[in-house]
């Protein structure tokens, strides 16, 4: 499953980042690397992007980007 499938309040562990290039680098630079715990906090009022908690801070990313992050519950 991917980060996009998690509902607000659910938590998972990052398994892999699927995309490549600048987006992958950016995701990883922000601390979303394999093995890290990630929790979905909320969805923006218009339904996208989402807000997650990772490494002790809040990160927002679009659903298109969240779909690139594979997680395990």
């Amino acid at each position, binding site marked *: 499953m991917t980060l996009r499938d998690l509902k607000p309040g659910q938590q998972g562990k990052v398994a892999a980042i699927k995309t490549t290039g600048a987006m992958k680098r950016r995701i*990883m630079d922000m601390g979303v690397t394999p093995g890290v715990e990630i929790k979905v906090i909320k969805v923006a009022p218009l339904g996208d992007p989402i*807000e997650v908690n990772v490494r002790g*801070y809040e990160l927002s990313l679009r659903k298109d980007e969240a779909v690139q992050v594979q997680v395990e519950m």
Partner: protein
Amino acid sequence: MSVIIALAGNPNCGKTTLFNEITGSRQHVGNWPGVTVEKKEGVYKKDKEVLIMDLPGTYSLSPYSAEEIVARDYIVKEKPDAVINIVDGTSIERNLYLTVQIMETRIPMVVAMNMMDEVESRGDAIDCNRLSQILGVPVVPIVARTGKGMKELMEAAVSVAKSGKKPEKPDIFGRELADAIQAVADVLGEGESDENNWKAIKLAENDEIIGETVPSDKKGAVKTLVDAANKVSGGDAEARIADERYQYIGKLVKECVKKSGRGHVETKSDKLDKILTNRILALPIFAGIMYLLFACTFSENFLFVPELPSPGVWLAGIVEEAWGFAAESLIGAVEAAGASEWAVGLVSSCLDGIGAVFGFLPLVLVLFLLMSFLEDSGYMARVAFVMDRIFRHFGLSGRSFIPMLMGFGCSVPALMASRTLESDKDRKITMMITPFMSCGAKLPIYAMFAATLFADSNQTMIVFSIYMLGIVVAVLSALILNKFAFKSETSNFIMELPQYRIPTLKSVAIHAWEKVKGFAVKAGTVIFASTVLIWFLSNFNFSGMCHMEDSLLAAIGNGIKWIFAPLGFADWRASVGVVTGWIAKENIVATFGQLFGNVSEETVEAVMAGEEALPAIKEVFSKASAYAYMAFNLLCMPCFAAVGAMKREYGSWKWTLRAVGFQMVTAYVVALLVNIVGSMVF
């Protein structure tokens, strides 16, 4: 001997607060060459020999954003004597990711562990001594907001800068990967070299910019070794490197940070965010804040109270009155001294030029007091979070909403507000389309035509449709620019939502003051020079001073009117109007008043009041060409003040001229279409 110390850190880590604290108000603000990234320099307030360079806030030294490239080029190529790396103690893991990357360059450095008060109030503890031991660089605990630890930090930084002590190469990567990187470094050059080691890491990270610096005779060997690095990393060295950096940081944090053990505590910020980005409340709250932002700056009926000026309008009124009085007395004095007519005219046009600059300062001041409050408080990041869904369709950031909204008031502060956007590309595009939002000064033009040529139709609808036209053209332009002019640049929305914090008065005030000063100095010269030039053209011909009808400007108008023939207004007076409109768009009405008959203040006032005061316009304009003329003046180059603001924000004439060129072409094409379609409709 003077030393240069650079500040590097994540966005929202308190870097600007620290910079203000160290330098006081002794700052110089400009742009890094070629990009819309702000460059700030200052001098340490306690030692004039210490120069402080504020690098753009970045999360990484990767080569993907303008900010990152500027920051790393400065560290690697300009080589400051030392770097102060500011780390936000409340999100230490992500912040240390930049720290280890700076250490990889082996520039002498000091870590400033910021927000120690918040760390303590959460019940956590960071052992800075231990961290310093492991990293091999000084780690100084500070609270930038209160200035705590500032003296110790600067002492440590100056001492490191003077001794030039480099940090040890951090032992981050696993055996295999480290060997693979070392092999790349060995190919780049003989012996131990910091630059080659750093480049080797970047090459393994598949960094294209560094890839281009590899001499062609070594390209093949480097490629083979980078492939080998990828192989030992399970196919993707870039990902493996990022991963191992974070693993290394994980160990550091385990060793040096004591968590309270209370688990994730809900902070005040979290509670506030539950309201501000609540599914139902977020949009009304957003609309309310945006209304206040606009109304405080521009409204003449503030908070819906008739005739109550907003702070911005009130201040602007005072400045205008004071300047008017000063200018009048000065002109009176010049006249009394027996100066000739042209000398008086020159003085009064110079005063107008200066007045034009002054007039905008209150708007800039009020807007940026509010903007820096929103920015520093953390709400600006939520603006993007809330609006992204809509704006991404145009290839823009949710934050583009603010400059575009402000554009309905005045393009000058609106263009300056584009600085708040996240990426260089977004800032450049937003600045090109912001003037398409019809500013307050363009309304009298519409009023004049509506009263004269559209007396029989719904005038409100005519004016409203012009405003809508501006929005539609802006959206289409954003799409086109994204598709064709900036297509190589990808945009993403992977960004931090920082904790809400109450901004310090000092940093809000300094930011607003910088904006006012920057506009007055950088834009001021553009505005002043062009105002005086147009005055000269419209009051002189080769035999001396004359009326506008015989002036050089009239000659120019006659010379260029053919250009406007396809748009339906091949008339020299219309052409002159376009030019005088560049001083200030409402000037078009005054110019028409002068050229189409009754020259008087009353004409202008009557037009503004919606009366048909200039029937002569009908002889030149049809409905279609009048609408085309309105559209042209809406979209073409904005007033010189706005061009000055663009120059200030783009930081280059090249980009300013590109933007103006784009606006002129857009105006021409749209006005042409309007004239063609309009001729069929009306």
